[in-house]
Structures are given as structure tokens and as C-alpha cells.
């Protein structure tokens, strides 16, 4: 673990309801720079809802969310959307790339949304392909990539704008275990190198066991479980 001075992201006492159903009942969570935190729990326990509240996708009914020194949970929808485009990265289970865009333009998109000129954005995006083992695939469309390759393109897209935190929601869920393992090592290694906090929502106990820290959520409440027994190789680097 390579934690900084204070948490880069912090959620305090988060409560959230969907209609009459209370999904989160006072969840707490903090992530430090370069730290890899696993969020585990049974289906329906509120993992994804917690992730969405922390990322500013949902507004919690109660509680606070802080990104660095800024409290973001009361920001407007437009401001939170802009925040996600620049300071937060996402990796989902599948289907997150635009099928019409070549891989390199998928990666360049967040930069262009942030105002970077197209040529510069594409050049910067292309520089991620070599380290991710994707060299030569820049011009391929998502439909022409394997599942693992697609997820690596998604990782590049999540990291290209140098976010402070990356949220990965079941990033290995659609991959075989070996590919999933390699992908997690890659993601954790890149997060550590760039000092990005990484939150991984996972069902996979093996993935969780190798994160710096695991937070379990049950009945809408969080509980720390422990530290990694065998951290990802990349994360130690």
C-alpha cells in the first residue's frame, strides 16, 4: 500500500433509498492515493449503490462525500458529470466502449471532452497502448477485440485523464480467471504508479484478498475486513 497523507476520497454515513427500500444505511469508506480497496458483499447488499454515491452518480439521501478537500455530494448534476469526466475514472464489467469508435478514439474521448484538441488527445491516448499490451490495436473497433483487450482499452480510457480515483465495477466479471488476474495486476500496477486511488467492486474473493484493503458491505452498512494477504504484483512495484 502506498497511501498518501489523507484520503483522496471519503464517504461518511451514506444513506440511500430507492423508493421504500433503504439500500445504504450509513456506509463509511475512504480511499488513499495509490491504494487499492476492494468492496465485497452479497448480491443486493448495496455495493454498486455505494460506488455510484461515491462517484457522484447518485446523490445520497444522507451523509457526505468528499473528493480531496471538496464536498461533492451536493453539487449539481452537471458539475458532478464534469467531475466524473475529469477527476474520476471508470471501468465496468463490459459494453462500455463506443462500438463506432476505433479503440484509440475511445481512449481519447475523455481528453477531448476535457477540451484537449483531437490530434493531441489521440496521440496521448495512443501512448497507453504499448504499456497495456495493445500495440497495433489502436485502429480496431471494440467488436474486433477480445474481452480482455476491450477491458484493457477501458482501463486506458479510465486512466488517460489522470483521475484521482478509479472505480472498477466487477472489471473481471466477464473474463476467465487467468485473464482477469492479469487484468487486475495491470490495473492495480498502473494505479500505484500514477498514485490513483482504486476502488474495486468484486464478488471474486481471490481478487479481494489481493487488494490493499477490503471493505465488506452487508445490509447497507460497511465493515472493514482486513488487509491483503498477497497484494497484486503490480501494486508492489
Amino acid at each position, binding site marked *: 500500500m502506498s497511501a498518501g497523507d489523507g484520503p483522496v476520497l471519503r464517504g461518511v454515513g451514506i444513506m440511500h433509498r430507492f423508493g421504500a427500500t433503504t439500500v445504504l444505511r450509513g456506509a463509511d469508506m475512504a480511499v488513499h492515493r495509490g491504494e487499492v480497496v476492494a468492496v465485497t458483499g452479497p448480491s*443486493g447488499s448495496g455495493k454498486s*449503490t455505494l460506488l*455510484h454515491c461515491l462517484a457522484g*452518480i447518485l446523490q445520497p439521501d444522507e451523509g457526505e462525500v468528499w473528493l480531496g478537500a471538496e464536498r461533492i455530494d451536493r453539487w449539481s448534476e452537471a458539475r458532478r458529470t464534469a*467531475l466524473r469526466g475529469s477527476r474520476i475514472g471508470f471501468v465496468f464489467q463490459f459494453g462500455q466502449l463506443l462500438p*463506432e469508435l476505433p479503440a484509440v478514439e475511445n481512449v481519447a474521448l475523455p481528453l477531448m*471532452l476535457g477540451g484537449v*484538441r*483531437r490530434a493531441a488527445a489521440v496521440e496521448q491516448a495512443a501512448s497507453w497502448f504499448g504499456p497495456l499490451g495493445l500495440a497495433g490495436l489502436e485502429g480496431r473497433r471494440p467488436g474486433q477485440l477480445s474481452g480482455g483487450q476491450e477491458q484493457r482499452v477501458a482501463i486506458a480510457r479510465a486512466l488517460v485523464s489522470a483521475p484521482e480515483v478509479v472505480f472498477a465495477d466487477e472489471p473481471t466479471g466477464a473474463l476467465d480467471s487467468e485473464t482477469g488476474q492479469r487484468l487486475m495486476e495491470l490495473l492495480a500496477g498502473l494505479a500505484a504508479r500514477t498514485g490513483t486511488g482504486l476502488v474495486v467492486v468484486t464478488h471474486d474473493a481471490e481478487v479481494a484478498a489481493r487488494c490493499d484493503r477490503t471493505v465488506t458491505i452487508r445490509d447497507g452498512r460497511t465493515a472493514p475486513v482486513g488487509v491483503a494477504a498477497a497484494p497484486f504484483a503490480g501494486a508492489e512495484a
Partner: protein
Amino acid sequence: MILRTAGLSLRLLRLGGRPALTSAGLVGAGIAVGTVLLAVAFGAIHGWGAREDRSGWRTEEPVRAAAAPVALLRTTPDIVAGRAMDRVDLAALQPGLAPPPGLPRVPAPGEVWVSPALAALMRQLPADALAERFPAPAGLIGDSGLRGPDELVAITGRTPDELSGTGTPVAAIGAVGPSGIEIYRQLTYVAAALLVFPVASLLGASARLTAARRAERLATMRLLGASAGQVTVAAVTEVTAIATCAAVIGVVGQWLLAPALAAIPLGGGVWFAGDLQPGPGTVAGIVGGVAVLATFAALGGMRQVVVGPLGVVRRQRAGGARLLRLLGVAAALAIFAAVNGMLRASPVAVVGLVFAVGVLAMFGTVSLIGPLVVRLLGTRMTRSARSPAALLAGRRLLDDPKGAFRPLAGLTLAVFVAGFIAPLTAVLSGADAGDDTALRVAAAPGTVTDLDAAVRERLAQRGIAADVVLADVGGDPGLEVTPVLPADRDRVRTALDPLVPDPVRTAGEADLDGSTLVGDLERGAIVVLAGTFLIAATATGTAAAARVLDHRRTLRLLRLAGTPLDVLDAARRAETLRPLLLVGGIALGLGLLCASPFTAATGALQPSGLVVLGTTVVAGIATVAAAAAASRPLLRSVTTAPAHED
């Protein structure tokens, strides 16, 4: 096995909850609208046939008997209150003759039967303006003998001597002769052809609406071991079932709309609602045809998704718009040129059908060239894109030009129709109807002086002030009578009725059929344009919704990852408006070309042509904007769906 698979598909649709029913509702709405318009076109064709069956025996040119005539028949056009009226004189040559349609018996000499509308007008107008022309009618002509409920017609029994020389000997009362209806029927064929492609494009867009959702479900079925054939059956069953239900709703809708449509005057009058309701065979054909078209569209949509044995849905790169299409364009243009050449030589009974083939060929050109132009535009936009929205739009156009053209196809075709109609309306609105002040009275050779005296006497007896002058009437000596009070025109006509066998009309009234046709063409053009735009608006809206639904997962994840809704919206705008302007311009040119056999394209620059074109441009852009706006809540909804839905 097929039935079981089909049953399972329908069960999945039923159990699919609100999203499935919403999608099915959108598909059904699009197909129902298309079906209504198809049924309207078929209803109109049916209507002309029904009118002809009832009134075709009493045209101005009845079928002349080759031998053994049974009656003498003469139909004379007349005018009252500015409306056309037919005066039919009938003399039986044999006893026991079958009565004409709408009458209980053959009228005896001197006996007059009038239509209900004429009877009402006789009560409404002063007797010396109309009723004196038909003293003491024996009864009313039934609906089965009328073109429409407002037709003004009188059937008078005559002796054979009275019609000797002026009546046409006929072999049967019911024989249908050539009439003005034929040109209307031919024009309706052209109008139907103008509607066919937009309706087909609407059906295609509607049937593809749920392609993505079906693909997901089919993937699961494939995973469970369903064969490729079973998956196909399951896919088409849903669309076919929805299309069939929607087509039934569409024909019922048209049936219910028929009374309102019947109030649109065409061919000189309004309609009986029943005339516009096609028969059971036609209705079954429409429903079956729509279901088959929708099924083919669904199969076409399936080709884009290959479901592997492991249930993995892989989106194939959509087939690009190949340059090979230019060959099709060349062939279509060659067909149009050939049709153009054949038009003048074609008999009137098929001229509409021949021209309809030409219209379809030009439609084909627009449909073939559209995706090609979209592809070229996509290439250009992608190369020059500076913003994410422009890049997204350009890539989407380039990635699937046919799919990108689909939402615009209806509108493009509507623009084509406007291009075709604009110069024609200019010609029609500029048509000169002739003088409409002086009533012209034809005189038999050598009698004009006597007639002059008789006319003056009759007018004086009735106290009608009018200028009477000798004049040339149709190449022969005659009189022109101009009443001092224009309102006295029908009184003059009634006063002079016993003096001359021919109708007393102004030059403008003599061309009433022509001006009626001009008015009908203008009304017909508006109806076709309105219908085309209704289809186009539905197709564009449906396709816009389909695109959002097809890409809802990606759009949602993009939004979650921080892509503003405005960027997604701007991309959607760019990928519709820019191709529309370009392809619409080409379609407009082709529409003008299509009208070239009738008038020069510069006619579109006349005020009425410019009104049509301007309205079309505004309506087209407004339609796209409305479709985008209508699907924006859907975009917002799918991109902000609650987290627990995934």
C-alpha cells in the same frame, strides 16, 4: 417445434414487463400509422371504383350499342349555385328495361328524379333559380345511383323522339363508359406509389426498434441450446405478432377515419364513407402484406447480430454502403427515362400505373443513393471533427451508413415528394379558368336572331335585367347574356332552360371540370404531402428512439463515466441534420426531375412552389428536431436508470 418456439417468444414478450411492452408499443404505433396510410390509399382506389360502378353508366360519353340498343341516353353538364350538376335524359326503347342504379323504375317520359342534394338545393333556392328546371320531381335517387352524398343530378324520362339525334343508343343501362374518374384513379396510383416507400421505410424502422433487446434475449436462448433456426423463429415471431396486431389496428383506424376522410371533396364532391373502406379481401391483403414486410425487416435487422453457440452476441460491423449502389442508381434512372418516353404513347387507363413505375424508380434512386451519401459525409465529418460530438456523429455515420440513413429515409422521401409537387402546384395555381361573367347561349344554325328575341322576351317576363349581345359561342353564332346582378345568374339559366338544349354557362363554368381537377390536384398534393410527412415524422421518431434503445447500455455507461448529456445530444443532432440537408437536397433535385415530364423545374420558383418547398424544409427540420426532442427524455431515462437495474 416451430410453434413451441414461437409460443415461447410471445410468452417472453408478455412477461417482459414495462420495457418490453413500451418497445412493443412503439413498434406497433409506427406500423399502425403506416398501415392507416396504406389503407387510405387502397380505400381511395376502392372509392373511385365504387363511384364508377354506381354512376359510370351515365357519363357524357356512354358506351354506344353496337346493335339492338335498349335505350337512348344523354348526359348534359349544368351549373347551379356555382356547382356542377348532371342532367341525365333517358328514353327506353324496349319495355321491361331494368331500372338505372338508384331508381325503382325506368322514368316515364316527363318524369324527373333528383338526387337528395339537388332536392335540398331546390328547396333552398328561389324556384325561378332552380326548381323550375325540374318541375314536380317524382322522387329521390337512392345512394346506389349517386357518386356521393352531395352529388347534384337529375334523371328525366324522355320519349325516343325527344332524344333522337342527341341521345346515345346504349346496349345496357349499367355499362360503364369512359369518365373523368379514370384520371383520378390513375393519379391515385401515383399517390399510392408516392406513399409506398415511406411506408416501407417506416415499417423497417419500426421492426428494427427492438432489435437490440431481442438480440440479448436470443443470446440467452442460444446459450440454452436453441438452434440458429429456433432463434430466428423466436426473433421474427415477436415482430410478426406485433405487426399483425398493429396492422389490424391500422385498418380499423382507417375504417374509423373513413367518415372524416369522406368529407374531403375530390372528383367534384365528397364521398360515401363506405366507399373509402376497402373490402375484406383488400383489408386481409394489407394486414398480410404489412406483417410480411415487417417480418422481412426483422430478418434484415437480425443479420447485424450473430449469436454464437455460447450465446455471445457480437455486433457485426454493419455492411457499408458500397459504390455498387451507383449501378442501381443508374438502372433506376434508366427506368425513369424509359417511363418518361412511354408516357405519351400510353393509353389513359394505364398512364398512372406507368408513371407510378417511374416514381418508384426515382424513390429507389433516393433510397440507394442515401446511404452512399451518408457514408461520404461520415468520412468527411470524421476527418474534420474537432469536438467529441462531431467525432461521434461522423464515426456513427461511417460505421453504419444504412442504419444512419434509416431514420432519415422517410423525411428524404417526403422532400422528394415535395420536389415533385412544388412545380406542379405552381402550374396549377397559374391555370387560367376563363371568363366568368357572361353566360353563353348556343344557337342552332340560322336561329340566332329568333333566339335573341326569345331570350330578351323571357328575361323581360321574369324581370331580370341583363345585357344580351350577339357573340361567337364555340365557333358558331350565339349570344352572351350578362346579368346586371351577378346573383341572377341561376335565374337567367332557369329562364332560358326551355329555349336551348345545351347548358347556359360562362366560359369559366364550361371548364368547371378542369378547375375542379386543378383544385383536386392541389388538395390531393396536400393530402399526399401531409401523409408523407406524417409517415416521415413517425419513422424519424421511431428510429431515433430505436437508436437510443439499441445503444442504451453504452450510452448509460458513457454518461456514468462523465460524458455530458449535451454531448450525446449534439452528436445525435449532427448525425441526423447534416445528412438530412445533404440527402434532402439530392432528393429535392430528383423530385424536380420526376416532375419534368409535366412541367419545368423552374415552376418550383413560383410563389406557390416556393411555399411548398419552404414549408417542406421547415417541416423537415422541425420533424427531426421534434424527433430528437421526443427521444431526449428516453435518452435521459436510459442514461440515468437506477443502478440496481444492471
